[in-house]
């Protein structure tokens, strides 16, 4: 931990009744690919050979179909003992095989079914066979590597023995997430607390909804708070025309505007504008200069949000190339998360990590200590309508 600033007592309370350092845990977010319920499956041919013939059969297959026709099967065991494979495959094999029961057999994946006709495969394997006809059964295997040990176990039971290699084709590598989490967990509760405090000011002043955001730069010199912004959608804005307020003045948009306005050669859009990039409260002025003086957008900065940002803000955070996002309260219209919330009412867009968007970051949901599944909402300083675009 490299924090050079602030180690407030965890039970000290601000004037708004918000503790200065929230206690809680960080839960890594899931990506859209990780939460997809569909397991992409491949049809394969499976056979069994006497144990002593195993390596010979495999080299024959390698000759016939070099590199498995381009399919990556590294996450699957090539060979598996009969008692380790799903009984459906085993039964289907023994139903057509005349193998004597005293030969010790081992099962193996021969080939992906789409790349070689079954009769050609049978012919080729038969030439290598001393006695009895070759039996090929069709089975299904997961196309992608599993993202957890539990998933590997479930797939082993359902499809074919699968290995979890701590890699993640559908999201950031677990080791990178773990390292980043160790870095931020010391002060995440402090930055979130600050975000709640400015949210309280916005709410009390009626300049916006009770939503707040803090932007932090992390360097060898510790953590620096570059922006503190409360929601300002109702600041100098008519409430009587039935809209959603000043959409451009959501807390995250303001915080981004505050940071980028200080970048070298930044020119404001117009003399007067609607973007609310000027501080509204003293708390919003109490920020530091970045260590990196010629930053680009919000490249690799950290953003701490009281509420899951709406689709607009979530994409703004992606466009601004943040490195990490932490938020506390999930929202029905939130753009960050991929898995649906408790009430199953989220959008599932998962914008924090989608390869096609050309920029991915790391992300966590903050769970306050002492909150069970039931107590989560009532422990927050106040309740914001879940349908709000935060």
């Amino acid at each position: 931990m490299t924090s050079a600033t602030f180690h407030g007592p965890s039970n000290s309370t601000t004037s708004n009744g918000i503790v200065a350092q929230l206690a809680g845990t960080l839960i890594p977010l899931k990506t859209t690919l990780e939460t997809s319920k569909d397991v992409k499956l491949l049809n394969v041919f499976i056979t069994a050979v006497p144990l002593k013939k195993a390596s010979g059969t495999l080299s024959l297959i390698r000759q016939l179909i070099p590199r498995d026709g381009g399919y990556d099967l590294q996450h699957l065991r090539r060979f598996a003992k009969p008692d380790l494979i799903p009984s459906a495959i085993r039964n289907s094999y023994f139903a057509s095989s005349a193998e004597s029961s005293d030969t010790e057999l081992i099962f193996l994946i021969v080939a992906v079914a789409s790349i070689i006709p079954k009769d050609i495969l049978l012919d080729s394997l038969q030439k290598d066979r001393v006695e009895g006809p070759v039996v090929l059964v069709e089975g299904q295997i997961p196309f992608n590597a599993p993202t957890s040990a539990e998933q590997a176990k479930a797939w082993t039971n359902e499809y074919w023995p699968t290995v979890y290699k701590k890699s993640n084709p559908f999201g950031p590598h677990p080791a990178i997430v773990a390292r980043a989490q160790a870095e931020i967990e010391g002060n995440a509760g402090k930055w979130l607390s600050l975000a709640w405090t400015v949210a309280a000011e916005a709410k009390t002043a009626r300049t916006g909804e009770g939503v707040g955001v803090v932007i932090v730069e992390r360097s060898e010199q510790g953590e620096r708070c570059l922006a503190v912004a409360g929601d300002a959608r109702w600041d100098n804005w008519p409430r009587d025309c039935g809209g959603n307020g000043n959409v451009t003045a959501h807390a995250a948009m303001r915080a981004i505007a505050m940071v980028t306005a200080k970048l070298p050669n930044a020119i404001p859009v117009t003399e007067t504008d609607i973007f609310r990039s000027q501080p509204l409260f003293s708390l919003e002025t109490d920020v530091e200069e970045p260590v990196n003086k010629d930053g680009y957008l919000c490249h690799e900065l950290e953003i701490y949000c009281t509420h899951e940002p709406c689709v607009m803000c979530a994409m703004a955070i992606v466009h601004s190339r943040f490195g990490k996002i932490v938020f506390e309260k999930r929202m029905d219209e939130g753009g960050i998360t991929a898995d649906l919330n408790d009430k199953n009412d989220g959008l599932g867009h998962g914008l924090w990590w989608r390869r096609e968007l050309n920029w991915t970051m790391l992300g966590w949901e903050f769970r306050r200590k002492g909150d069970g599944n039931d107590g989560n909402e009532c422990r927050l300083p106040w309740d914001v309508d879940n349908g709000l675009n935060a």
Partner: protein
Amino acid sequence: MSEDEKQTHLTYMREALAMAELALQTSETPVGCIIQHPTHGTIGRGMNATNRTRNGTMHAEFIAINQILAPPSQYTPDILKECTLYVTVEPCIMCASLLRQFGIKKVFFGASNEKFGGTGGVLDVHLGNGRGIGGKEGDYEVSGGWLREEAIVMLRRFYVQENERAPEPRKKAERVLKLEVEPLGELSGNGVD
């Protein structure tokens, strides 16, 4: 759609293209838009300003809405509910959500945005905030493919221009301007006819 209506939309789209051209001249990604009101006419214009402001969120749509609502303004925010946006490139996910929250009535765009598009390219924010079901409050109509080729040629001119500006210019072959545009693909098939 009548030929007259079609010509009207094309005229507005040319106004949007003029904004993109302006962006190109100032080294901004050439995306331009106009906001059109049925009785007040063109009430806002915008072009990408991410380079000038150093703020990656300052897309043409934000600039145009700012132009309409920044003080002193003769309009209240609810005017956008009566307006149509003409933009040279499909609104990104961020802007599609901005438009949804401000209650825009209809969007006409030129080229599809397969990387960031929020009205069909990647997500359908205009339909139930991307839930895939329409009929929700805030939903808006979208029509793509208007002066698509012109919008794409503009983007290509930008990339050539920026490459030449870069300290180490890329290989000559890469700098040759590709002006022919592939025919409208299936994905962006909601075209001009």
